[in-house]
């Protein structure tokens, strides 16, 4: 039986996280199908058809799928799973998948396996627990395995090179449940935090929203994205969507620069898989230094401007 991947897309392209989910799905050794839902998603379905390794694309369109509400996407995904007889259902452990897959798992009366970082066998998965301090290996006894996979743990398959057929499938009826009133995206020309090659993250020591502009400048100079610890978010310096950690984003850039972040376990859970970690902190005993490849003890308000000057 085949594996079905739920695509995250913006009506034009698949997210890189979806291509990570396809990579994970291919490891089950069966055919991989991708479901693309939306109101006007033909271009995204075309993009999915171009992903090497994808055998078939299912495209479900309806006006009420435009906003991709969890209830309506789950209903359509459930219908596709029932019609197609899939053994595995996979989505990236990100916004859409986290909202939708548990609903589908419950409707199928199976347990979901969330945030998978390694696949040992088609029924055996490794997932972090306790803020990533421990790794649990679990074996599913359910007839359908429903899993969300952590994108940073699976190298995404390429975006182009494949030629899968696209099949239209019916959208499930409108559930009439939640409705999107407004959706604001603060799109910038900067790379997305989740997939940025460089992340510059700040903590409470930044002291104000104004001071975070220092990090904006450094991130811009390094071609990276800005992130934050929960302490900085709670203090109101930046929005929640920049939070890195157990309850925020999980990132693994090539370079992670932690500025004025002490290194609580909840924060470390979100960045410890970064390739190279730099820590800048005034407190030489800060736990972040135990993790950092390059620790620099100093006042961030001197070090960051000096870094900017040296990079120019």
């Amino acid at each position, binding site marked *: 039986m085949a594996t079905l991947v739920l695509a995250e897309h913006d009506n034009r392209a698949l997210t890189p996280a979806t291509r990570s989910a396809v990579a994970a799905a291919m490891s089950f050794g069966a055919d991989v199908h991708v479901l693309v839902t939306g109101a006007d998603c033909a271009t995204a379905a075309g993009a999915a058809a171009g992903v090497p390794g994808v055998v078939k694309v299912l495209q479900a369109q309806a006006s009420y799928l435009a906003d991709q509400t*969890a209830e309506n996407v789950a209903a359509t995904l459930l219908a596709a799973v029932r019609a197609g007889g899939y053994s595995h259902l996979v989505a990236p452990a990100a916004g859409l998948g*986290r909202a*939708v*897959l*548990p*609903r589908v798992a*419950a*409707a199928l*009366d*199976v*347990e*979901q396996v969330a*945030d998978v970082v390694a696949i040992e066998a088609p029924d*055996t998965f490794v997932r*972090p*627990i*306790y803020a*990533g*301090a*421990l*790794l649990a*290996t*679990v*074996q599913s*006894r359910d007839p359908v395995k429903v899993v969300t996979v952590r994108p940073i743990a699976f190298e995404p398959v390429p975006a182009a090179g494949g030629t899968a057929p696209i099949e239209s499938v019916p959208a499930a009826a409108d559930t009439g*449940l*939640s*409705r*999107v*009133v*407004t*959706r*604001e*995206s*603060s799109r910038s020309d900067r790379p*997305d935090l989740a997939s940025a090659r460089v992340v510059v993250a700040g903590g409470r020591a930044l002291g104000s929203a104004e001071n975070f502009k220092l990090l904006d400048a450094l991130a811009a100079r*390094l071609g990276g994205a800005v992130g934050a610890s*929960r302490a900085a978010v709670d203090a109101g310096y930046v*929005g*929640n*969507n920049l939070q890195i950690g*157990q*309850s925020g984003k999980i990132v693994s850039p*090539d*370079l992670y620069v932690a500025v004025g972040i002490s290194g609580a376990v*909840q924060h470390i859970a979100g960045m*410890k898989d970064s*390739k190279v*970690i*730099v820590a800048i902190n005034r407190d030489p005993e800060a736990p972040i*230094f135990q*993790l*950092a*490849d*390059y*620790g*620099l*003890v100093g006042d961030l308000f001197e070090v960051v401007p*000096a*870094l900017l000057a040296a990079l120019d």
Partner: protein
Amino acid sequence: MNVLVALKRVVDAEVSVRPTADGSAVDTANVRMAMNPFDEVALEEAVRWKEHALATEVVVVSCGPSACQDTLRTALAFGADRAVLVQADADLQPLAVAKLLKAVAEREGSGIIVCGKQAIDDDSGQTGQMLAALLGWSQAVAAAKVELGGDGALVTQEIDGGAEVLQLPLPFVLTVDLHLNHPRYPSLPNVLKAKKRPVEVLLPADLGVDVAPRLATVRIAEAPRRRGGGRVADVSELLSKLRDEARVIP
């Protein structure tokens, strides 16, 4: 409006846990336990609704061993009206908990169910959504702001690169993020009073729910530790290391 708040008793966030010697489970013997911090935020939100006359009754429910009564009494001290324990000593996985919560919600006639967006022990983040699906209700996950009205709620949830506002018709399930509010500290008189208040105890069988786990734990291991600790003296040493040794900047 009856509001049901689901609470999980977890290992305290400050405790670092280890696998048992045989690697078959997480060693939770003799460690400090606490209410899941996300659920504490859910409870605070529900109690505020009651205080603003947007809810008539706040019922708290926990599924787990009898020690969960401590968590429930903390919730009573917070301002919850009644407490229900679904007592089970076995490993309860999210699907089983969602089924138990559904049964309790139907028994209570709840119109809103609130819980944390994840528990800090298993970090699954799925029970609320499973519950919403079993009931056929609307859901919002990781709510950062909630405006409760007569026929539903406007809920702000964080999405990648921004925020969206959802209109949720009643009834609904809400999972909350830590940023939603700052939970209160219960007063000492309320803590003392809560010790004497009753907690209703039910068994999964009373609710007709099979709680057999669907996932078998193969092993629990410590995550590989990162070896850090390297130091640089100044900015120029840092940049030369990043260029020549790590090669992560041009």
